[in-house]
């Protein structure tokens, strides 16, 4: 008999697919790592399980414990699924303007949602979570932005898979969120070949942060500072909603239904491909397109969709 004992054993070991037909440069191949294939639906299943197992091993998490986490979606969903399976309770601090599917997924896994102002984006969720964590020391605050188990999940999982499946890799492109993926994969790849370039892609800040009073309210994930993110990255590029959506649509030409941040990462991979002579680029599709159907990103009027995307958190 062949069966997984638990859905959690299916986390990781995601496939790599050749999307070189989308490369602007015949000398450069492009591959996508489909993290939407994880059981919870996104790459975040990896750090979610890793942070929880790390906390269990250190005794921080007791049976039936309550966890608190600021997250605009995928980490919350990953944590919620793992918590449900393991019997923990999860409270998620969530910006009010996330897509409705994210909210529904959190609720179906049994997470309690605490809202933070949409206009304050993820910064606002982190701020609110920190205040709540201080008020409730009995809750376990795994803090994905500061937890080394996050990048370690990628160093130990995502990275060796890429190295195994694509040993000729020259460039790695991924979205910059907590920086876990870029730090973990980046460090692993450069240890094996220092010439490998690590490119980060990010959404435009600006519109989402009207709640910022001054630039000192800015935020850099602690793991990024502590693990030398600035020294590790070779490039960081903004990809806006229009390009993100256009490239997400292009992926469907190859039968791939991925989330909007995958389009952003692909846009980054394409920019990279156009800037080099030869190469092998791997980029991450963090999740599938399911949670973004309500945005009309694939079938709606592009201008309308782009306008709506500027107000929603899709990255």
């Amino acid at each position, binding site marked *: 008999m062949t069966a997984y004992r638990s859905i959690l054993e299916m986390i990781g070991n995601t496939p790599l697919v050749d999307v070189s037909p989308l490369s602007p440069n015949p000398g450069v191949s492009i591959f996508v790592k489909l993290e939407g294939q994880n059981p919870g639906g996104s790459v*975040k299943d990896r750090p979610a399980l890793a942070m929880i197992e790390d906390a269990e091993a250190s005794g921080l998490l007791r049976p039936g414990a309550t966890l608190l986490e600021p997250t605009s979606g995928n980490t919350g969903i990953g944590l919620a699924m793992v918590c449900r399976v393991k019997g923990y309770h999860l409270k998620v601090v969530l910006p009010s303007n996330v897509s409705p599917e994210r909210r529904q997924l959190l609720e179906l896994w049994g997470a309690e949602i605490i809202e933070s102002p949409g206009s304050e984006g993820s910064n606002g969720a982190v701020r609110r979570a920190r205040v709540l964590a201080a008020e409730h020391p009995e809750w376990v605050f795994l803090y994905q932005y500061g937890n080394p188990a996050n990048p370690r999940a990628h160093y130990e999982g995502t990275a060796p898979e890429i190295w195994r499946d694509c040993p000729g890799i020259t460039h790695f492109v991924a979205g910059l969120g907590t920086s876990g993926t870029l730090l973990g994969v980046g460090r692993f790849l450069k240890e094996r070949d220092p010439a490998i370039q690590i490119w980060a892609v990010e959404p435009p800040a*600006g519109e989402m942060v009207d709640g*910022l009073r001054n*630039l000192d309210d800015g*935020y850099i*994930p602690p793991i990024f500072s502590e693990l030398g993110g600035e020294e590790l990255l070779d490039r960081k590029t903004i990809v806006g909603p229009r390009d993100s959506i256009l490239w997400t649509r292009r992926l469907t030409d190859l039968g791939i239904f991925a989330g909007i941040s995958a389009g952003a990462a692909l846009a980054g991979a394409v920019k990279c491909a156009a800037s080099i002579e030869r190469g092998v680029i791997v980029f991450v599709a963090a999740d599938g397109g399911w949670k973004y159907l309500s945005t009309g990103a694939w079938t709606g009027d592009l201008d309308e969709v782009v306008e709506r995307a500027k107000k929603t958190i899709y*990255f």
Partner: protein
Amino acid sequence: MSVAIRLPTVLRPAASGQSVVNVDGETIGQVLERLQQTYPAIAGQVLTQEGSLHRFVNVYVNDDDVRYLDKLDTKVAPDDVVSILPAVAGGAS
């Protein structure tokens, strides 16, 4: 030469409400110094007293973060768009 600088919402009041201003300079460093000279209320917010980039501020030339190009020595051309944005918690993690 003159380049366009897009200002983040939080700095616009210091530039009389403008979201885009034009400033002369051949490198990002020169452009940012000129910006702070032209709009004194911005002084210290983008470049520190010592002349380095404020740690919570990101500066982009045509969407590329200058920290990963040539930092303050990054060259700018007349058609380039420079954007100043605050560092924020990453996307939808």
